[in-house]
């Protein structure tokens, strides 16, 4: 077999080269992943916190949320957002598929993040919560000033791997024709028949993206660590 990397400088027929298309696909992958990550962190933290509060209805809400979004395959969830929700709620008909995929991936990941946040809060000694309440802080204040600052530091490593997973999982967006890397791989492979070169480039970009997220997370972890405390190390 002979390599043919020239394929990336061929014209796609749409006035751009395959290389330009590849780069825009990478942009879509990163945009889907990062927007979904924001949704997942916000919703996941909220649900994770609800699962630890002393109110059984809120705990039930958090638990149900987690079970619902954890036990349906991501691809099926994406189809639900893309096909089912707009036809039940007609007002959502005009929403671009990018937004739907971001919510699908974000909510899917939020279940996993809720699990980590809950575990992070629960590893803190119970005394911290009691101490916060005993000095007269309200429950939200106890969370804001006592529990969450430590819990979030503890869960940075698992959240890092979830962030890397979100890059990988964004590949499922190909199923609803988001022009991201996997979609590019499938279409460009078909058009050019240079599957190996195309797939290698795409796989390489997934590697780089995940690695970059890993480095950023490590940087954040080092910046926020509390010396001598859990998750602080030194």
């Amino acid at each position, binding site marked *: *077999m002979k390599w043919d990397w020239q394929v990336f400088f061929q014209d796609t027929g749409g006035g751009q080269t395959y290389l330009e298309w590849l780069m825009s696909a990478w942009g879509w992958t990163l945009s889907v992943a990062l927007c979904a990550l924001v949704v997942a962190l916000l919703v996941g933290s909220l649900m994770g916190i609800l699962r630890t509060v002393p109110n059984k209805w809120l705990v039930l809400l958090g638990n149900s949320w987690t*079970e*619902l979004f*954890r*036990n*349906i*395959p*991501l*691809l*099926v*969830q994406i*189809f*639900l957002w893309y*096909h*089912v929700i707009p*036809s*039940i*709620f*007609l007002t959502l008909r005009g929403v671009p598929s990018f937004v739907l995929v971001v919510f699908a991936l974000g909510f899917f990941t939020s279940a996993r993040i809720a699990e980590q946040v809950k575990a992070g809060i629960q590893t803190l000694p119970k005394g911290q919560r009691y101490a916060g309440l005993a000095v007269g802080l309200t429950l939200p204040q106890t969370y804001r000033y006592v529990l969450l600052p430590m819990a979030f530091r503890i869960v940075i490593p698992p959240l890092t791997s979830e962030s*890397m997973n979100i*890059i*990988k*999982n*964004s*590949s*499922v967006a*190909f*199923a609803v024709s988001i022009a991201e890397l*996997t979609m590019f*791989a*499938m279409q460009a*492979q078909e058009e050019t028949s240079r*599957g*190996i070169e195309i*797939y290698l480039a*795409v*796989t390489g970009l*997934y*590697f780089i993206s*995940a690695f970059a997220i890993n480095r950023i997370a490590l940087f954040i972890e080092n910046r926020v660590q509390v010396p001598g405390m859990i998750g602080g190390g030194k």
Partner: protein
Amino acid sequence: MTALDFSFFNWNVISGFVIKGFFFSIQLTLIAMIGGIALGTVLALMRLSGKPWLVMPAAAYVNTLRSIPLVMVILWFFLLIPLLIGRPMGAELSAIITFTVFEAAYYSEIMRAGIQSVPKGQVYAGYAVGMNYAQCMQLVVLPQAFRNMLPVLLTQTIILFQDTSLVYAIGAYDLLKGFEVAGKNFNRPVETYLVAAVVYFIICFSLSMLVRRLQQKIQIIR
């Protein structure tokens, strides 16, 4: 809000479209689980052997597969296997090979953590009473390690079952595809996707409840 109409859903639809896909999903899950655990055990033992020429290839295998999206792995295998064997291969068989190879990487990490969770003193005790490496593994370490990792292995299998829906990328006929084809035939895609979600949820939720019960039952109290 448009009205949903489930009336077309009868036994004929289920037996005509869904059952075939359901059996393929189950078959794919079971084969990939058994093959993946077997291959994963070998990989885990290689990584724990302490010999660089065994550790390095196993680590490379596991780390590479774990950093590529599953959909890309499915596409890679679908592209590469026919090139290697010189003739086309069906999407179903290609999916079975891909999932076995891919899941082995994930199972091996679980096995490795499980084996490492057994205190070192147990291994020394085994050697002290005159066992060799194989005996010590088989009689002392693995029985305890297996107990620790069984719930995690089963949870991974539930994830595997969910991931089988990704064979959509190469057009294999699995459970989701069965629902999709039924939806297209009756022009009721919305209803079939909803039912598909409910079916997946019921299967995965009840399995994860069972795993949770099992976990409480077999926990080793230290």
